């Protein structure tokens, strides 16, 4: 009996928490299909009186969000691929090779995690201007080429690769890069998927840097385009909500399908041996 009461109480609390957690997202979804003006009615409503897709049509047809969507997807994919290469190489290098100063270097890298990215932003902007990549996709990709977090994640995983396996490959006459490409990448696949999901979401969601670097609206990523839209269409609640859905939905879906990798990444970053 007492157990049943506990069970019910526990699940009531969990259900309430879950409801409060998804409520903002549900309202966003509902408001995005409401007829114009309904979302800012008094009292506010949660269920649309009629479902319309006009706001989505307006976003795509009139406000060119298709392009921003493609930019976001392309940039996130590009940064993910490139940084995966850089980080996996470095992570493997730190885990499995000995060279002078390796451990000190690795500690220094970890120490750099404390430096807020904003500290580098002002000179980085001037540097990228000198390279002529402000207002190009490169301006977004370059700062994301490698990350300390990514290197750390791969290194922790690669430490577990048995040296005997690598030595066997060397005995067979495989070159170091060949070993990395055909053996190490394969063995590290789970952590690479984790890192890929992380990087993709991080790049997709990033706001401040694309906001600064991209001047041309045809290069805008979704968050920048959305903030731009908010500047002029703040009155058009339903339209803004449709834009928010469009921005949020892809990463939410990605998460739902790949969550075990994502969660594994957080856990391995958070809990140390």
């Amino acid at each position: 009996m007492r157990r049943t009461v506990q069970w019910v109480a526990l699940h009531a609390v969990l259900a309430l928490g879950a409801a409060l957690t998804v409520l903002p997202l549900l309202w966003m979804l509902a408001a995005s299909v409401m007829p114009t003006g309904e979302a800012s009615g008094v009292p506010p409503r949660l269920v649309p009186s009629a479902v319309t897709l006009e706001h989505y049509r307006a976003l795509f047809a009139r406000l060119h969000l298709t392009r921003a969507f493609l930019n976001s997807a392309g940039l996130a994919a590009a940064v993910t691929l490139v940084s995966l290469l850089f980080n996996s190489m470095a992570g493997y290098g730190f885990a499995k090779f000995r060279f002078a100063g390796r451990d000190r270097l690795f500690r220094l890298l970890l120490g750099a995690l404390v430096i807020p990215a904003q500290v580098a932003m002002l000179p980085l902007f001037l540097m990228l201007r000198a390279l002529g990549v402000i207002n190009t996709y490169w301006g977004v990709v370059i700062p994301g080429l490698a990350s300390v977090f990514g290197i750390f994640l791969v290194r922790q995983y690669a430490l577990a690769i048995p040296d005997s396996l690598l030595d066997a490959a060397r005995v067979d006459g495989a070159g170091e890069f060949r070993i990395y490409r055909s053996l190490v990448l394969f063995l590290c696949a789970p952590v690479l998927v984790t890192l890929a999901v992380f990087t993709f979401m991080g790049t997709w969601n990033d706001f401040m840097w694309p906001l600064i670097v991209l001047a041309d609206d045809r290069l805008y990523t979704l968050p920048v385009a959305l903030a731009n839209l908010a500047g002029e269409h703040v009155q058009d609640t339903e339209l803004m909500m449709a834009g928010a859905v469009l921005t949020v939905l892809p990463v939410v879906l990605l998460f739902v399908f790949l969550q075990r990798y994502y969660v594994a990444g957080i856990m391995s970053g958070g809990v140390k041996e």
Partner: protein
Amino acid sequence: MRRGHINAGWGFVGPALAAIGAFFIVPVAASLLLSFTDFDVYAVARPDRLRFVGAGNYARLLGEPRFWTALGNTAYFVFVGGPLSVAVSLGAALLLEAKLVRWRGFFRTVFFLPVVTTLVAVAVVWRYLYHPRHGLLNLLLGVVGVHPIDWLGDPRWAMPAIILLAVWKNFGFNMVIFIAGLQSIPERLYEAARMDGASAWQQFRRVTLPMLAPTFVFVAVVTMIGYFQLFAEPYVMTQGGPANRTLSVVLLMYEEGFRWWNMGYGAAVAFVLFAIILGLTAVQLGLRRLQPGTEPIR
């Protein structure tokens, strides 16, 4: 070890180190130099209008009430929002790890969902939720008899509103870390405690909390570093208002650097922020080391 082996190591770490060095470490160093100059719109056009001002930017910054406002707001966000967020995370993790729970995976996914959403998008959404007359939040609060609050317009409520959004957005992240920490506590410790006749609360006090200590430090440090960098929420929702109540240090840096192009002054703001984060991280890790029997976090 063969020599080629040694070189290969550099070959593997080289590209990433070069990228991080060129596009992070060098700019950080340049930023330090910049903070000793008065690089601004005049100097962008004509380098001869650049002056070396020594510690002048820092002196001016420390004498500027607006900086202290920004620092105070950021501290409010970090030291109220941070613990609140960690507490909610821990609560959610404890609930989810209770033995009775069914549909654990479903609840975990739901609680985690806000973490992966795009901050700009949800900030836009919450701006409507917070509307004093049309917003859903006041409607819900009205049901329990709370008078309408002008969340983002009232100086007293703007920062709590930002904190509420941040807690909603972030608690799932630390929740997962706490779950991992809870799962790593050996069951035999609880069994031993129960044999000693410990109640549920005593088990929590004597087993769960001490065993979670390393996780706590990690969560505290990461949350603090992240919360000190508050930017997108006020940028999208309040632009630092009302009455500067949500002006954060990073927003101030953005304004000085990228709105007014006072890059020297903006760089000084960034470095003061860095120094504070560094100091507090050192304090937190140092406190941890003072306690015997636990391993410091790497």
